[in-house]
């Protein structure tokens, strides 16, 4: 662990990334203290440019505080990113583990299934799903999860396949351990490193996907999210650039930071690559 932290700390980008991610989490956590009003509330005249001490990132077309929107939006973006990633991980890890461990016909079936989902254009599938089941937090999270699990399955399966033939797993077999013990104690902990890296990138991707859906008008109408704010601000971009620029920056920074964290994790967990950087 210490070694891992040291390896991670060597990567300056990763440090910056984790700081930004923590900052975003902090903003999300403190949103209701800093902005003790609903982000939907009108706090001033519409289209106030940034700089006003009460509305330091300006106001939108209904006089709502853009800064408050970004703070509360961080919650939604992170929530959607985290929950959809968690769901995708559950599905992906389970299927990948089964495929990699069982091999044979079951593996084949699972991989065809996975391939199918990987072939289908994911953004279009997400749109179709959200459109058909009408936009809500649940449908958005599910749609994002549905389109983002296949890489997890592939990675986990590959790990399981390689670990299965690793000698310590064979030793466990020879010692007479049950399948469950072998999967949970011997294989899974050793297969997690790439999944952790993937997860951080998936959160980033989920945030991007959500913003794309919101941009097309498929966001949850009761939740303020960055994607929604850009969607609402893009049509008035010439009138009020700050309405879409700031949430856009928020997405950019968060996604960038998550990617940096992912890279840092990848390097730290895979020292062979890190050395070459």
């Amino acid at each position, binding site marked *: 662990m210490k070694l891992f932290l040291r390896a991670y700390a060597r990567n300056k980008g990763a440090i910056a990334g984790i700081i930004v991610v923590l900052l975003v989490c902090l903003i999300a956590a403190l949103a209701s203290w800093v902005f003790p009003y609903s982000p*939907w509330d009108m706090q001033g005249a519409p289209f106030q440019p940034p700089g006003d001490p009460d509305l330091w990132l300006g106001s939108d*077309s209904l006089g709502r505080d853009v800064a408050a929107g970004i703070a509360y939006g961080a919650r939604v973006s992170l929530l959607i990113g985290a929950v959809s990633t968690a769901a995708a991980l559950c599905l992906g890890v389970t299927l990948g583990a089964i495929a990699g461990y069982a091999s044979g016909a079951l593996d084949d079936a699972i991989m065809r299934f996975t391939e199918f989902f990987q072939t289908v254009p994911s953004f279009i599938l997400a749109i179709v799903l959200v459109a058909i089941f*009408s936009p809500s937090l649940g449908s958005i999270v599910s749609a994002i999860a549905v389109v983002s699990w296949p890489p997890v399955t592939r990675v986990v399966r590959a790990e399981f396949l390689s670990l299965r033939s690793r000698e310590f797993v064979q030793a466990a077999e020879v010692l007479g351990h049950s399948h469950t013990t072998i999967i949970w104690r011997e294989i899974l902990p050793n297969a997690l490193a790439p999944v952790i890296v993937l997860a951080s990138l998936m959160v980033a991707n989920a945030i991007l996907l959500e913003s794309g859906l919101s941009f097309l008008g498929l966001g949850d109408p009761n939740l303020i999210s960055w994607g929604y704010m850009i969607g*609402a601000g893009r*049509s008035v*971009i010439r*009138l009020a650039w700050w309405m879409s620029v700031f949430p856009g920056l928020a997405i950019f920074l968060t996604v960038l930071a998550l990617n940096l964290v992912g890279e840092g994790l990848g390097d730290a967990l895979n020292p062979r690559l890190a050395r070459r950087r």
Partner: protein
Amino acid sequence: MHDLTRRTLFAGAAAAGLLPTISRAQTTPAPKHGGTLNTILTPEPPILVLGVNNQGPTQLAAGKLFEGLLQYTFKLEPLPQLAKSWSLSDDKKTYTFKLQDNVKFHDGQPMTADDVIFSITKFHLELSPRARLIFSMIKEATSPDPHTVVLTLAQPFDPFLLMFDVTACAIVPRHIYAGTDYRTNPANQHPIGTGPFQFVEWQRGNFIRLKKFDQYWTAGEPYLDEIIYNIIPDSQSRALALETGKVQLTQANDIEPFDIPRFKAKPNLEVELHGWEYASQLSWIEINHRVKPLDDIRVRQAISHALDRNFILNKLWFGIGKVATGPIASTTRFYDPKVAKLQAYDPNKAKALLDAAGLKPNAKGVRFTIKQLALPYGEVWTRLSEYFRTALGHVGIEVVLETTDAGAWAKRIGDWDYETSTNFLSQFGDPTLGVERSYVSTNIKKITFTNTGGYTNPKVDDLFATARQSGDSAVRAKAFSDVQAILCDEVPQLWLMELAWPTIHEKKLHDVITTAMGPNAGFSGVWIG
């Protein structure tokens, strides 16, 4: 003064000076021929034959391809189009239309009384629910000669003449449609009408191209060689197209309200807000009276007090339009400014009314929760629903937004499956045509654009019935005044705004908006100079 019927008695014989005229600018130089008008059509219509489809974009483009018997002035007085004159019998049941000579369809066939009768009694009667309601009153339709049409009604119907513009009753060629399935007739893909422009090509998703019809019945018109409707789904791209001069004309909801002030300031552009008097669309918060506590008059009044209509007009619509004062738009006939007054913006009064209704706030300050089904027609309507949520939140009513698509929205409204929603309806010039339907108990149906909210007041029913059945304008005016007073008090729907749709065009484009048909008109007189 909206005494339509009497005036039209003289229409056929009257000299031009006495007649209401197309409001053409008198000072401009003589029109010039030639040029291509690039404009915008959004969203892309499914089909360009009126009747088969009556959506807004269809009306815009098909209005150039087809014509009606009449058109209307800004004050909703009839003007000749395919009918050069008309008269009404003394029993107010028989209308006689004299048709223009030399009118040809785009395929070269002459247009005669047969085509008119076919269009009225067959084509639109079958296809259009709105036309069916009115045209089914026609007892007999005859043509004494190829240029005369006589329609006899079962009973007098005062607003009858408002049903003959191109959007309500476009004249279609009988020789093409008779005996076919109108909806799937191949001509729907290549429309044939009598309009000043004829259909050339339609690249789906890209543009529709119309060209001048050489055998148009008004000599020397149209002036333009071509009209191209560009299909641009993104509002910013549309604004940009206008800004860069790629299109010279935008209409309806092409340009989002917030962009209007910017275009108003441009010296080369003209923003016109009239031309929608016929439609006179009124927007409101649609209320389902079956949902408690919305059936309580005090609650509706409270909500009405909680809404700042000026904010809606100025901040959401950027001042485009007017604050609504009641169920009848100020541009519609029989609007009575003396009685049409709505609850003023006063949150405290709203709270008091809610308290009186026994709806006390709970620990979180919430009195009750209702759902709002947002109208899926674009951003500004979403903003409106968001404003509704915020405004009601301030008086302790929690609003949960639901979004849906246009189809499902219509279905849910039709199925009464909503608590509140947003809606806007056209009034078609006369309350009997466009207002009555939303408030009378006889029209509580599981169909969109009926009295889906389920409002019932026998007095209101009676007053609307009186107005409908009477041929006497004074009787009708009295009934409508009374009904306005009642409705303004009971607020069955929360009227918000009289919508206006800006028509923006380059100043070098002349005579664009000349009638109440606005940009739906045929544009035969439009020219570039």
